[in-house]
C-alpha cells in the first residue's frame, strides 16, 4: 500500500538559513500523528513547506502524496488535491465575506475533483451544517474572513474550512493554542468526526491535553529542523513530565528514529 504522505530527508531554507534539516515522516491513511517540539524547531516551517509557501526553498529530499511528487505542485493545486493546512496564525482578509470565500474555495475544490459545484443556496445549507459542527455562530459567515476574529474564533474558522474541504491530509498547526476548554473540545470533536480510514491528520501541538481528546497513533518530537524522536502517545506524557531536555540529550542517536516508529 502506498502511504498517503511520505516525507523523505526533507531540507528547506528560508532566506538562505536552513530550517528543515532532513525530515522524514510517513503518514498512512487512517493515522493521526502529533508533532511536538520546542519553539523555533521548524514545525510550522514543515507545515508551510508541505502547503507550498513561496518563502521556503526545498533544498533536498522529497515529498510524495499518494506516490506523486507533491513539491512540483503549486499551493492551490496541492490544496485541491487534498492537502490542508490549518494555520498557526490565520490571515485576515478584509472586505471578503467568509461565506463567499468559503464557497469559492469549496467550489473550486469540487470542480477539480470532478464533483458538481453547489449554488449559493445549496452551499449555504451545507455551511450552516458545518458551522454547527464547529459551534460557530452563523453571523461569522457574513463577516470578513478572520477580520477582527478572536484567536480562538480564527482557529474555529480554520476547522470549519477543513470540515468543508474534506482534505486527505490535514496539518493542524497549533490549532489548540489559545483555545479555551470548550473550543478545544469543539476542535477535537470535529477532528474525530472527520477522521476516516481514508484520511490522516498531523497535529502540531505544545500540549499533551489535546491528545487526551484526540488520540494520536504516533507522537514525534521535532528538534533543530528534524524529527528527533518518535513514539506512541506515551511519549507525549513523558515530554510533559521531563521536558524537551531529555530529547535533546539523546539527539546523538536520532537517525532512523522516525522511520522506526512508523512501521
Amino acid at each position, binding site marked *: 500500500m502506498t502511504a498517503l504522505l511520505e516525507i523523505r530527508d526533507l531540507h528547506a531554507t528560508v532566506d538562505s538559513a536552513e530550517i528543515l534539516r532532513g525530515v522524514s515522516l510517513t503518514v498512512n491513511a487512517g493515522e493521526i500523528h502529533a508533532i511536538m517540539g520546542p519553539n523555533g524547531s521548524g514545525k510550522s516551517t514543515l507545515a508551510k513547506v508541505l502547503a507550498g509557501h513561496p518563502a521556503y526553498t526545498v533544498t533536498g529530499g522529497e515529498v510524495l502524496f499518494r506516490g506523486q511528487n507533491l513539491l512540483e505542485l503549486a499551493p492551490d493545486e496541492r490544496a485541491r488535491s487534498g492537502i490542508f493546512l490549518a494555520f498557526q496564525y490565520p490571515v485576515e482578509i478584509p*472586505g471578503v465575506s467568509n461565506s463567499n470565500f468559503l464557497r469559492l474555495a469549496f467550489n473550486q475544490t469540487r470542480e477539480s475533483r470532478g464533483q458538481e459545484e453547489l449554488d449559493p443556496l445549496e452551499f449555504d445549507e451545507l455551511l450552516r451544517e458545518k458551522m454547527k459542527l464547529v459551534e460557530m455562530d452563523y453571523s461569522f459567515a457574513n463577516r470578513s474572513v478572520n477580520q477582527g476574529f478572536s484567536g480562538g474564533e480564527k482557529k474555529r474558522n480554520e476547522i470549519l474550512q477543513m470540515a468543508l474541504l474534506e482534505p486527505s491530509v490535514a496539518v493542524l498547526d497549533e490549532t489548540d493554542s489559545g483555545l479555551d476548554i470548550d473550543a478545544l473540545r469543539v476542535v477535537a470533536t470535529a477532528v474525530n468526526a472527520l477522521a476516516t480510514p481514508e484520511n490522516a491528520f498531523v497535529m502540531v501541538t505544545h500540549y499533551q491535553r489535546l491528545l487526551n481528546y484526540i488520540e494520536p497513533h504516533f507522537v514525534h518530537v521535532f528538534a533543530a529542523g528534524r524529527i528527533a524522536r518518535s513514539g506512541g502517545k506515551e511519549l507525549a506524557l513523558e515530554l510533559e513530565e521531563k521536558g524537551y531536555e531529555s530529547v535533546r540529550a539523546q539527539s546523538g542517536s536520532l537517525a532512523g528514529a522516525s522511520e522506526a516508529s512508523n512501521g
Partner: protein
Amino acid sequence: MKLLLSEEKDRYLAAYDARAAVAVAEPDWLASLRRLAIARFDAVGFPTTRNEAWKYTDVSPILKTEFGSSTGSIGKLSFAGFECLRAPEAEGACLVFVDGVYHPELSSMSGLAEGVVVTDFATAVAVHFDALAVRLGVLSAHESTPFASLNLAMATGGAVVLVPKGCAPASPVHLVYLSGGGDEPVAAHPRTMVVAGESSSLTVVETFASVNGVASLTNAVAEFHVGENARVDHVRVQREGAQAFHVGATAVEVRRSGSYSSIAISIGAAISRHDLHVRLAEEGASCHIDGLYVTEGEQHADSHTRIDHLVPRCSSRQLYKGVLDGDSRAVFNGKVYVHHDAQKTEAHQTNRNLMLSPRARVDTKPELEIYADDVVCSHGATVGALEAEEQFYLASRGLDEATARAVLTYGFAEEIVEEIPVASVRRHLDEVILDRFQKGFSKG
C-alpha cells in the same frame, strides 16, 4: 502649446455664443451669471500641466476632440442596459438625462415625499427661481476651475432637489446622467443643485454612465447645501465608457451640526477628474468623504478633494482608495485646510493604493494645512501590491492564482463599496467590480 489651447478655448467660446443665440430667453439673473462665468472661463482658459492643480492631468486629449452640442438624442439607448442603472429604491424620484438633456419619459417623479422638489434645471429656473437664484454658482465659485465656469455658462440640463425643513424622504433620489446617446461626439454640461433644509435628511445618488462607445465629454457640476442639523448622503458613481471624458466638480457647504457623507466611485472614462470641495461653515458640521478609483489599460483618473474647516468643532474623515492596473494612472490630491479660528478640529485623511501592475502609476499628495493650534489631525498615504501572505492563504484553500488575486483586490475595494447606503447600487457595483477584476486577472 499655448496657441493650441487658446484655439480650443475659442471653440468653446463659439459654442457659448451659438447657444446664447438660439436659447430661449432666460431671466436676467441667470443670463448675467452666465456672462460672468464665460468671462471667467475666457480669462483663465483651459488648464495645462504647468498649472499646479492640473500638474498630473493633461486635458489636451479632451480638447483635441471636437464635440458638437448635445441634442439629447437617444437613438442608441438600449433599454435593458439602461434599466440596470436605475436604482429600484429610487422609483418615483429618478431623473434621467442624456448628454445633459432632460428626458421626462425616462424619468419618474411620482413617489416624492410631501414638499420635496425634484425637478429638472429648466423647470427650476421657471418655478423655483427663489431657491435657485440666490444659490446657483455660489459654492462652485469657491474653488472654481475653468471647467466649472464653463458648466455654469453652458448648463441647460440638470437636476434641482429641494428638501424642506424637517423632511426626511425615506427613499433616495437618483440622478442618472447618460452620455453618448447619439452618433457624434458631444459635450454635456449637467448641473445639479441640492438644498437640504434644516433638520432634513436625504440620500442622493448620481450615476454617470455611457449609452454606447461614442466619445463624449461630461462636464458636470453639483452644489450641495446642507442645512443646520441636516444630513445628506451622496453617492456619486462615474462609470462612463472607455471613449468618454469626464470632468466633475462637487461643491458642498455644511451648516451648524449638519453632516455630509459622500462615496465617490470612479471606474469609467478614458480621462476623468473629480474635484470635491467641502466647506464646514458652522460649528459642529462634519463630513465623511470616501472614494474609490479603479483604473486599467490607459485610463487616467484624478481625484482632487479639499475640506475647509472654517470654524471650531468640526470634524472630517476621508478614505480614498485606488486600484490600478495596466498602464493606467491615477492622481489623488487631498487638502485639508484648517483655518485660523477652527479650534477643536478633528480631521483624518487616508489614501491607499493597490498597484496590480508595475507599469501603473499613482501620484498621491495628502496635504494638511493647519492654522489653528488645538486640533487633532492625521493624514497618510500608502502605495502597495497585494499581500503575499493573503495570496498564499487563499491558494492554500484551493483558489487559483487569478481568482485569489481578484478576490483580494475586490476585498480591498469593498471597504468603500460596502458603505454605499443604497443596496441596488451597491450590489450592482459589486458585480461590475468583481467581474472586472476577474477578467483582468485571467488575462494576465
